[in-house]
Every structure is written in C-alpha cells, then in structure tokens.
C-alpha cells in the first residue's frame, strides 16, 4: 500500500488486468502517443494526460493500439472485438468526442445483448475524461454522464478518488457488459493510499463518505470531494451531513439514497453536468416519488447554469459547483421547512 495518484491508480488497474488476462487490450487516440520522436521512447506521452504511459512498452503494439482520429471506426471496432471475446478498453480521450461515435455506443454496443436475445456479451470499457475546471473550453469540458445514464444497456461509472478508480476500473474490465468509465480530468494528480494488489468494487452500491443526521448530500465524481469539505466545515457549525457517492449512475443505488433521506429529511444534490435532465433532476424525482413524506425541506440542487462551459477562468470557476455553494445550499435547507396545510 502506498500513496498513488488518480492517474497511477487507473494505469495500474489496466496494467494488472492486462497481465492477468491476455484478452484485455487497449485502443484509442494517442494511448501510445508521442511515438517516432528523436528520444527513442516508445510512448513518450502515454495518452494526452499520461494515463496509459508504459503500457505499450510492457504489452506491445498488438495489445496497445494507437488508433487514427476516427472515433466512429475504433469505437465500432472495439465493440466488435468485444463480441468476439476480447476485452477492449477503448479510450475516447475527451468525452465530448462521443458526438462522433454515438451510434456505435447507443444503437450498437448498448443494444447487442437485448437484440441478440441475451446470447451476446459485450465486455467493452470506454474510458473518457470529463468535466470543467481545466480551462479546456466548451468542446472539451462537458460532464456527459447523464447522456450515457439515459441509455439502457450501458453501465456508467464515475470514480471519486484514486482508491475508487482502481477498484471500479478493474470491476469494469471484468464485467461482461459495456461500461462507460468517466474520469474527471482535474483529479489526475490527487493522491491517496491505494493497495498494490488488484481489487474490485461492485457496481450499484453507493459509498457513504460522511455520516451526519441533518442533511443528505448526493454528489458525483469530483463533487464528492467538494461535498466532503463542505460537510466537514458544516460539522464545525453543528450541522451533520451524510455524503453519498453513488459510484455508478447506472445501476443507481436507490435504496441507500432513500434510506439516508428517510433519516435526515433533507436532500442536497451536487452535479456538475448541465442542469436540465441531469443526475440531480433524476435523483430529485426519485426522492419526490418515493420519499416525499420524509422531506422536511425542499430538495436543493447545486448545479451549473444551462450554458456551455465558459473558457474564461473566472467564469469557469463561477460556472462550477463549489464548497461554498454546497455549504449555502445545506444552510438554506436547514432554514426552510415544509409546513403542513391546515
């Protein structure tokens, strides 16, 4: 056990699974990037942010496929490879590029098991980075997990820390269904203790990162860390928060969310994706339907405005949820109260 970054944890998950199972292959744009330079290094970059570095060296060009910039072709090829029994981990680089290969994911990969009467398996993982805060502008900053969550047949994973990332990615690679694995690009240098061995974290079980009696906060990916910080500050003010990291948006651990709301009676949802039809609206609907009588205050969503992600740094940070915004939302649900009609 040692401290590892989010980047190292993800790299280690792929490396361990490639050692364990010769059917696991890597493909994508620049996963072995930087070849042909004068330094003689095979993959000087190892992906646009260095996540796949060293895999080409260890596993060779037959298992680490550097693809052309043609998402439609290599995501389609990965889906086909998965049907033949390989276990491809295809990297889409920025999740925003899904626009170029949505048919392969939405109409093909996600539907195979259903269309072939349960006889087809598609053990495909599509990795992509998401999220604002990297000053990468509107076409490279979106948080598109609601889009994938919307499509039946896909599993959608959003790790919130290095420990979570390694265990969830190994689980994704061993899963026999297509899994979308989304990495917040701002988190690659975050570190924590991560075991050296392989381990798996099951899908569909939320993790409680804080426990408190007053307010339930549901947060996704990088927002979990911000929610934890807000919860710690609020605890010093005497407000106890339970923070739920669902880990996967599909499947979603409805039971844990509903149980926590039943205990606290107040709900704040932190979601950095665009606010219309996102995870926050989905969970708000779930709780309004299933736990309405437990609510002691209106549900609050901490979400960005319905605009493209701004490029200007000041506007970008204003756009995103923050610790302060989460604190303010929690304080507001503590101060409002649902009154019964006479």
């Amino acid at each position, binding site marked *: *056990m040692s401290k590892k970054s989010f980047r190292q944890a993800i790299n280690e998950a792929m490396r361990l699974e490639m050692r364990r199972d010769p059917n696991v292959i890597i493909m994508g744009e620049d996963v072995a990037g930087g070849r042909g330079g004068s330094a003689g290094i095979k993959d000087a970059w190892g992906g646009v942010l260095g996540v796949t570095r060293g895999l080409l060296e260890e596993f060779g060009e037959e298992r680490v496929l550097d693809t052309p910039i043609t998402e439609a072709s290599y995501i389609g090829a990965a889906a086909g490879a998965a049907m033949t029994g390989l276990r491809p981990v295809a990297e889409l680089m920025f999740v925003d590029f899904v626009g170029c290969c949505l048919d392969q994911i939405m109409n093909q990969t996600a539907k195979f098991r259903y269309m072939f009467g349960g006889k087809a398996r598609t053990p495909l993982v599509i990795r992509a980075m998401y999220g604002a805060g990297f000053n990468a502008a509107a076409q490279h900053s979106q948080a598109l997990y609601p889009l994938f969550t919307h499509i039946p047949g896909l599993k959608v994973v959003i790790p919130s820390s290095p420990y979570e990332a390694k*265990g969830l990615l190994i689980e994704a690679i061993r899963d026999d269904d297509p899994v979308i694995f989304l990495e917040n690009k701002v988190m690659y240098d975050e570190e924590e203790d991560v075991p050296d*061995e*392989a*381990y798996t974290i099951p899908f569909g079980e939320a993790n*409680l990162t804080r426990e408190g009696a007053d307010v339930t906060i549901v947060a996704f990916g990088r927002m979990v860390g911000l929610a934890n910080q807000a919860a710690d500050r609020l605890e010093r003010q005497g407000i106890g928060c339970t923070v739920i990291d669902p880990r996967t948006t599909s499947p979603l651990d409805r039971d844990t969310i509903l149980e926590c709301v039943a205990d606290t009676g107040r709900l704040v949802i932190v979601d950095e994706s665009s606010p219309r039809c996102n995870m926050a609206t989905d969970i708000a609907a779930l709780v309004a339907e299933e736990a309405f009588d437990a609510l002691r205050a209106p549900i609050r969503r901490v979400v960005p405005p319905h605009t493209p992600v701004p490029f200007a740094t000041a506007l970008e940070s204003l756009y995103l949820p923050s610790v302060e915004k989460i604190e303010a939302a929690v304080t507001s649900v503590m101060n409002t109260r649902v009154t019964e009609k006479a």
Partner: protein
Amino acid sequence: MASEITAITMPKFGLAMTEGKIAGWMVAPGAKVQAGEELVDIETSKITNAFESPVSGTLRRQVAPNGETLPVGALIAVVADASVPDAEIDAFITRFQSEFSEASGPAEAAGASADPVLVTVGTHTLRVHELGGGDATPLVLVHGFGGDLKNWMFNHAALSHARRVIAFDLPGHGGSSKDVGPGTLRFFADVTAQLLDHLNLSRVHVMGHSLGGGVALTLARDVPQRVASLSLIAPAGLGTQINMAFINGFIEADRARAMQDVLKCLVHDKSLIGRRMVDDVLRYKRLDGVQAALRTVAAACFPDGRQGDDLRDVLEATQIPATLMWGAADEILPATQGDGLLPDSAHHGFVDIGHMPQLECASDVNGIVGTFLERHDG
C-alpha cells in the same frame, strides 16, 4: 510530590487514528481519580473506547470539552495532587500547549509508532508491526479468522511498556500475501514459527484470539519449548461448535449492509460496528484472492460445519502456563467451550461481552494479560 503534574493526552488507538473526539467525560473536574479508572470516552472514526487514567490524583482540568476533536497527543486534561496550586497547573498547560504546537505534526508529537513492515518468510510476505522494547520476554499477537493486526488496536501499545510486542497478519489476511497453502491450523502455526526464526526470537509469550488461539495452541503443541505462556481469547480448538452462519456470511458478504450484519455477531454492543469499520473489512475482502483464501481456511479448519481440531489436551501435555478469556455473550464460539480447562483463577469470563473482549473490554484484557505475562517472564 506536590509538584507532579500529569498531562492526559489524546490516545492513539491503532495505526489509522490521527485524531479523536471527546465523546463524554466520566470524571468531573476536581474529582479524585484512580490509575486505571475510566476517565473519558474517546470517539474515533472507527470506534468509541473508554480511556483510563494512567495515574491517580485529582482531575484538575478538562482542557478539552465534550464534543471537541483533537489530534493524537494533544492535551485533553491535567491530573495532579489537590495541593498543587492553580497557577502551577495553568503554567503547565501553557507550556505544554506551546511545545505541542511547535512540534512538526500531531502524530509525530505523540511519538507515533513505526509503521508495519513487510517481511518475507518462506514463500509468504507477512505484514508485521512491532512496538515496545525491553528485556522481558516478547509477546506475539495472533488474530482470528478474517481479522488482522488492527484487531489489537486497543491492546498492542498498552502491553508494550515492558517488552517487544509483535502483531502480524496471518497469510490470507490483512496486508500479508494471500496464499494460505492447506489453510490448516498447523500451516498457520508453521508460518508463525518461521516468523519467530526470522525475528531471532527463541521463546515468546503468545496471545491468540479465536482461530489465532487455535494457532497458538497448535504452536505450543508442536514447538512447546518456544512458547513461554499462552493468553487465549475465545480460542478455537476447545470444542466442536462454531457459528458457520458467521463464517459463511463473512466469506460471502460483498456489500456494506450485509457485512455490517455479519460483523455485529462479533460483539455484544452492536453499536460498536460502525460504517468505517465495515468499510475497512470490505477493503480487505475486495482484494483478489481473499475470498478463495478464506474458503480454504474455513474448509480446512471447520469441515462439515464443525471445528476439526481438538486441542484440549495441549495445556496438560505441555504444562505451558495459560490464561483464558471469554465473553459470556460470544455468538461465534460458545463460552462454555472453555469450561473445565483451567482453574478458576486463570479463567476469566466477561459478562455482556461478545467474541472480541480485546475490543469490547480492552482494559480488562490488558490488565489480566499484563499481570499474567509479568508472572511468567523469564
């Protein structure tokens, strides 16, 4: 004598603890307190435990109020004789606080113990954590099925004042490698003996809990000359009955809710099993190879749902001094399995305590074992 002032500082329960919360004072300021008397409940992220006064005197100040969270080593109270003037107490507190805040980090300031190390023994890698020093016969701690060295979090440091105390993870457990060979008590006893060789320890006291108690008895049977004494907590090997619902539940559970229910069987006070403790166990359970290892151990040690090893005659055959501790509310191994083995003076039953007295009534266990070891040193 009048000038003796004792700083009561935030204790460190186990490796992971960096801070603790004052969950409730049990002694009022100005009241007299005896050494060993419970002073305050300390809540960590994993568990709440009573902290005992290390000295006798008057509780002159509660520096930390109820509800306050402080780093390990921080001043929480001051004990001194009633005759010590208030001004001296105040000066002591001021001096302590300025020295404490100057220290590099809270954990270091408390004299944090060295981290566990990985040791290669034969084909196994073992996580070993050693505390203490001194000339008295060293003590080795052997945890139970599914456990690890953190099971001794309330005992390890407390027993290490006069001697080296070595806790380690058995193969298949904690941070050790996951190959458990045949998974038998003899296998674990062999590995324990190899660890003693590696550490150049010819003769040690052994304390074992549950399956680890069975390992300790097996070690005593196989190499009696190396075992100075046995401290047995709810040990395996003294009867046939075992709660297989717990064993199988522990092996199968992969979700927090299921695991929490399983772990509650271990204690009488069910509130001790918090979410963090469950998370810790799940982190171990998720590692590749753990489930297979536990299955192998369960099949080898509990064939047909019963304990396969009968070690009742080991104590009489070897004449190794022993003390036996058992919670009367044990739901894993019935406390009656210890009946008739030792004279009453060496057989300690704990009312309203479950399978883990070393956790649930740590101070009682530490007191009994500390006295017992002193008597059998040399």
